[in-house]
């Protein structure tokens, strides 16, 4: 067998490591501020969710399910959520939910403007698209390493890694949604003397809303799946229970926590999908 010639050897990873170290040396202040901001948001959401009586959340899920799906779904979601409490995993679920919600909120804050920018500029699209491809194909725990280097252990790097992982769908679908708005409609907006901003806010965003909602749904789902992986850097929550259960080969513990994650995923998915459907604009 022919082996690849050894003298042609070049390792890229080392430069990435150097780059990350350079970032750390020169931008430590920036990361510390970022750390504080994320932590602040996260703790607010976390303490709110833990303060919230369990039955309020169950009722909320029931009403949302009823409003955006139907009565049967509402009852089913409320029952499933109660099941998590029955398993004794309510507190852990709230911690997980806090990370998911914070990550999703920050992802939208970042992703919507980037998506809009992409739809307006072909150059930005050329740059951003391969980055998004990389973000989606890279094994997700790879993000944990730089996240840990920048933010140490705990919830903040988990949020950071989750954002990196969950960001692409909302960017892609915002871009797609705005680009698919009918050309005539955009022309009509401009023909009546709208500025670019007015066209965006009054025509393009409302038209793209159903697609953007699908993006938000996808982002939420990916954030939820990332939370399990983020437990590898010591984040308390459902993911950690699963991980610990597998480590100790305690199937019962792993199963309850795993099922809770599935329940959470189903509820969030169906409700956000239901909201997205409500915004669908009937075709001509």
């Amino acid at each position, binding site marked *: 067998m022919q082996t690849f010639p050894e003298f042609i050897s070049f390792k890229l990873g080392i430069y990435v490591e150097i780059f990350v170290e350079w970032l750390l040396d020169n931008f430590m202040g920036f990361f510390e501020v970022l750390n504080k901001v994320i932590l602040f948001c996260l703790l607010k959401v976390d303490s709110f969710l833990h303060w919230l009586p369990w039955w309020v959340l169950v009722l909320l899920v029931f009403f949302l399910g009823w409003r955006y799906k139907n009565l049967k779904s509402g009852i089913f979601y409320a029952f499933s959520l109660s099941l998590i409490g029955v398993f004794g995993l309510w507190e852990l679920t709230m911690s997980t939910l806090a990370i998911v919600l914070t990550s999703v909120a920050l992802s939208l804050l970042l992703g919507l403007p980037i998506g809009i920018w992409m739809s307006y500029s072909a150059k930005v699209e050329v740059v951003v698209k391969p980055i998004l491809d990389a973000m989606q194909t890279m094994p997700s725990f790879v993000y944990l390493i730089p996240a840990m280097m920048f933010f140490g252990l705990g919830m903040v790097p988990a949020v950071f890694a989750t954002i990196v992982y969950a960001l692409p769908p909302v960017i892609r679908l915002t871009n797609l949604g705005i680009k698919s708005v009918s050309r*005539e*409609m955009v022309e*009509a907006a401009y023909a009546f003397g709208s500025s670019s901003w007015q066209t965006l806010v009054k025509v393009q965003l409302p038209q793209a*809303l159903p697609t953007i909602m699908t993006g938000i749904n996808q982002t939420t789902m990916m954030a939820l799946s990332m939370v399990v992986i983020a437990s590898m850097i010591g984040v308390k929550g459902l993911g950690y229970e699963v991980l610990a259960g597998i480590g100790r080969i305690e199937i019962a513990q792993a199963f309850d926590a795993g099922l809770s994650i599935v329940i959470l995923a189903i509820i969030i998915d169906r409700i956000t999908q239901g909201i997205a459907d409500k915004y669908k604009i*009937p075709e*001509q």
Partner: protein
Amino acid sequence: MSVKIKVENLTKIFGRNPKAVLKRLQKGESKETILKETGNTVGINNVSFEVKEEEIFVIMGLSGSGKSTLLRCLNLLNVPTAGNIYIDGSNIVEYKKKELREFRQKKVAMVFQHFGLFTHRTILGNVEYGLEIRDVPPEQRVEIARETLATVGLAGWEDKYPHQLSGGMCQRVGLARALANDPDILLMDEPFSALDPLIRREMQVELLDIQAKLKKTIVFITHDVNEAFKLGDRVAVMKEGEIEQIGTPEEILTHPVNDYITNFVQDVDKTKVLQAKHIMFKPGALVSIKDGPKVAIKEMKNAGISSVFVVDDQRRLCGLVTIDDALKASPKHQKLEDILLNDYFVTAPETYVEDLLPAASTAKYPLAVVDKHHKLLGIIVRVSVLSALVHETT
């Protein structure tokens, strides 16, 4: 009528680096060579024309002839590569962003082929849009929008959404949205092409009605010759980005400048374009009311006809005398007044040939064309009506 829109040497080239391509085009290179070598498409090539105030100016051409591109230059949705567009004397090509927005908000409005309605807004919300952009206070714009919707016959549909309306109704909304801004100029991009024939005819008539009341300057795009000739005060025929001929429908129909135009207009139903004045001719014989039957007989004999129109000294039409009556009257020394007939058909010069057909096919005598003072302008015989159906009258 004063000139509202004046377009001078307008050229639009799509693709990269249009200025360089423009130079090649001006050197006389063909559009095909340019497309092959640079990949640029020449949308419109050195087009000049004028549109008068309160006129319906129709731009007609096949798809790909550049008519939509040309229309979109008039509100700068397409920015021309070269040339000037003067509207009320000011060159819109030089407008800065703010001026352009103001111009679009106040002077010009557009109606689209596929309506371009905002599907997330109600009908009222659509019609309000232009006013909203102009910062008209909400109560006022609702009022204007409601009134405009009533003008196009859509009162009561304010709270519906576009998907709940039929195509014809949607285009009424499109028209109302444009009219609500009270623009001087209406740009209409094949507005009725997407509608079925019955609705299309209805909308054409309605547009003419609205135009009679509001008197806008309308630039109307269509690929349908019959529509162009029906609506247009003047028509421009475009081919491959250039204007082949501009003129009134009659001029184009009767004096096509080249074979392309001839081919283009051959399917036209000429009876819908030609009017009485286009096919009438000067009577070969005419008798004054003061003359006696003898003069009438002589006139008819000379012209070889069996009836003749009688006019007074103002050339106003008095009646008709037949050869039989004149021959009978002559020995009895009767006057012409005593033997005048009135059972002939009288028409105005603007009557379309289409409407003359029934009268022409049954009438015993020629049709008389008279102006509003009843002055005889000319006569139409059956054969001239029929020949108008077949080929050019000149």
